[in-house]
């Protein structure tokens, strides 16, 4: 019996670089301007003025909920008593990922949460991370 035949593809030229990230990990949440509340639902807008949050960026609460906190913000702060990924927050809050990043961009700007893993997406994995994951899986 002969299996169906596939044809290998070649790598495409890399896409143009994304808009320059305005936030570096160290300066997270210090340069953003306050956002209008309705931006939470503007989930199809441009990505340029959002923090470059990855699905697996770890978020940690830095403060108790301020009196002005929305229910979503209060929920994030409660969930992030320990580190939690943006993907998990999105799942628990039932918010689309991009809506979640808008909410978190505001919270990073307000200083109520901190992004622990790199905010800016890396194109190449770090060697020590690669080895940690490899050895960790081997021990499972």
């Amino acid at each position, binding site marked *: 019996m002969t299996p169906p035949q596939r044809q290998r*593809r070649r790598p495409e030229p890399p896409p143009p670089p994304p808009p320059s990230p305005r936030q570096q990990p160290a300066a997270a949440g210090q340069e953003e301007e306050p956002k209008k509340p309705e931006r939470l639902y503007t989930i199809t807008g441009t990505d340029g003025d959002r923090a470059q949050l990855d699905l697996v960026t770890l978020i940690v609460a830095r403060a108790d909920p301020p009196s002005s906190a929305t229910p979503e913000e209060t929920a994030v702060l409660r*969930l992030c008593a*320990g*580190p939690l990924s943006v993907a998990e927050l999105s799942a628990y809050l039932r918010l689309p990922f991009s809506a979640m990043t808008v909410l978190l961009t505001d919270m990073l700007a307000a200083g109520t949460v901190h992004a622990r893993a790199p905010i800016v997406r890396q194109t190449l994995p770090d060697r020590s991370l690669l080895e940690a994951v490899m050895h*960790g899986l081997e021990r499972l």
Partner: protein
Amino acid sequence: MKASETVPGPRAEDQLPHSTQAAAKIVIVGGFGVGKTTMVGSVSEIKPLTTEETMTQAGIGVDDDFGSATKTATTVAMDFGRIRISDEVVLYLFGTPGQERFWFLWNGLFEGALGAVVLVDTRRLEVSFEVMGRLEERGVPFVVAVNTFPDGPRYAVEDLRQALDLTPEIPIIECDARRRASSRDVLVTLMRFLHALMANGNLT
């Protein structure tokens, strides 16, 4: 959302330690029904969760009707699980249900991923062709895991390699996605492959 108290969170035993500093991700891809969600579920330490992304038609239709006046929102869902690697490192596994043409438009799903597992089912090899091609175009390193089904045809690895047009260094392994140890072995194979690529300076 009515009240924040109604939002569920991780169970106490699923909380990550405060010492967790780094998160890595691996994406599990393949055609419809090959067992991606099964693999995430079998190896994850938490009950798999689902995240969603909303895309407009203008964003989706880049290859057919880009610029069409009507914008229709489409929701793309993604299952994921998690493995604690150490007190400092956590690994996330994203398994992508159907709608494969949307995965690559999900901003940031593959960027920053360590690599990918392509799950194939020998009864329907061709359903995983498209995603393999997309990974190659994107330059995302991957291994091929053959999810063995009792009624599926068995091919020799070299026949599969030829049929899938894979270079000799890409690992092809058989697995049973329902079994945790087997899924773990697939992930270990991917990590060793990535480590070899990096050691050879071929991880680009």
